[in-house]
């Protein structure tokens, strides 16, 4: 009884929040609801027995994405005000009165509902029990060098996926840097001594936590992505408070850090190809060490990429 109630509440709140987040008249409140949606999704992942994803969602979904969208919102609002020269209305929603728009909205709503119905029919007619790939993954787990099946899939069985993903991260940051110049978040820590005293121990704690998640990822939920997200959180805090300025000035170091994941991963793949004849097929018995090295490099790249995305552009003085 209690589990069903919990599931029902969770699902209802998630769906209601998604609707409100996207259709709230006040855009800012919509963003807040979007952040809360991430938080509830993390709970849903836990309920679906996916703690690896709950970790990632807790860090990325509600923390970093929320901070990203919030700062973008304020930046856009500032520009709107500067352009219009008047205190802009809160939301620029599509609440137009004219008929044609309403008609197309109704049409689209009907289309969406029809799509939902078709998808639901297709999904519910699937067999109740599936075999999946659990057995195969568990059978090969002893050869993979790690004991956490998700990490084994990510960095051994389907390592090429992950290699490409790290490449996508690099592409994203290159794209952002090509588009804009990032702003210097100018916070004066002398006005906020309390924040400084918090950062003094939270920043090292986040860095240690990133390392811990990387290490434990071999045997338990965790890994390079989750650790990287924590590192990114630390970087965002450092950027916000101005402590990260010194890091950003060292452009070559930052660029090396951004690319090191792809580089190490690619080199490892090439070496493994020459050694064993298979792309990213690690030599027998050494897979654990290979994975750890690749993950450590990926952690640095992921952390830097996600953290610098918050800057919203390439660093550099005027």
């Amino acid at each position: 009884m209690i589990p069903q109630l919990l599931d029902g509440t969770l699902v209802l709140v998630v769906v209601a929040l998604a609707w409100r987040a996207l259709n709230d008249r006040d855009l800012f409140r919509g963003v807040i609801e979007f952040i809360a949606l991430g938080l509830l999704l993390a709970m849903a992942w836990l309920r679906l027995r996916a703690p690896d994803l709950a970790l990632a969602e807790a860090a990325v979904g509600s923390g970093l994405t929320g901070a990203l969208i919030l700062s973008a919102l304020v930046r856009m609002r500032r520009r709107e005000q500067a352009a219009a020269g008047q205190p802009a209305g809160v939301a620029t929603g599509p609440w137009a009165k004219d008929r044609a728009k309403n008609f197309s909205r109704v049409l689209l709503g009907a289309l969406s509902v029809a799509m939902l119905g078709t998808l639901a029919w297709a999904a519910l007619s699937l067999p109740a029990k599936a075999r999946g790939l659990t057995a195969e993954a568990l059978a090969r787990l002893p050869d993979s060098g790690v004991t956490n099946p998700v990490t084994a899939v990510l960095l051994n069985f389907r390592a090429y996926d992950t290699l490409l993903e790290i490449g996508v991260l690099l592409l994203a940051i290159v794209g952002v840097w090509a588009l804009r110049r990032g702003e210097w978040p100018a916070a004066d820590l002398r006005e906020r001594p309390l924040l400084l005293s918090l950062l003094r121990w939270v920043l090292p704690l986040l860095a240690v936590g990133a390392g811990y998640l990387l290490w434990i990822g071999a045997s338990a939920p965790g890994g390079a992505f989750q650790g990287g997200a924590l590192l990114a959180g630390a970087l965002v805090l450092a950027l916000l408070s101005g402590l990260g300025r010194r890091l950003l000035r060292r452009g070559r170091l930052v660029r090396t850090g951004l690319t090191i994941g792809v580089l190490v991963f690619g080199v490892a793949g090439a070496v493994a190809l020459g050694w064993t004849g298979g792309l990213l097929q690690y030599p027998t018995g050494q897979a654990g060490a290979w994975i750890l090295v690749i993950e450590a490099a990926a952690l640095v790249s992921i952390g830097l990429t996600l953290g610098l995305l918050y800057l919203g552009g390439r660093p550099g003085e005027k």
Partner: protein
Amino acid sequence: MSTVFLTAALALLLTIVLGLAQVFRQAGRADSLLAAILFGTTGVAVVLLLGKALGIPGAVDVALVFASLAAVLGVAFVLRGWPPDDFPEDPRP
């Protein structure tokens, strides 16, 4: 015993629903963020209780990440995410 933890998690989820009512009704910007931060603290407790009830050992780490990233979000809001045109309302009777 796990039922006890699950019931507690459910009750906390219901308080989150209640807090959402605060966000949904016409509240100030900072107030809705306050509610979100409140969900952060409650969310940590829910994750811990849920993990204990379901027997997921990694849940403590999830809560740890939650707790540390809630700080990031809050600081990001105050320093860079607070809309410049806030405070048209308040205090409300």
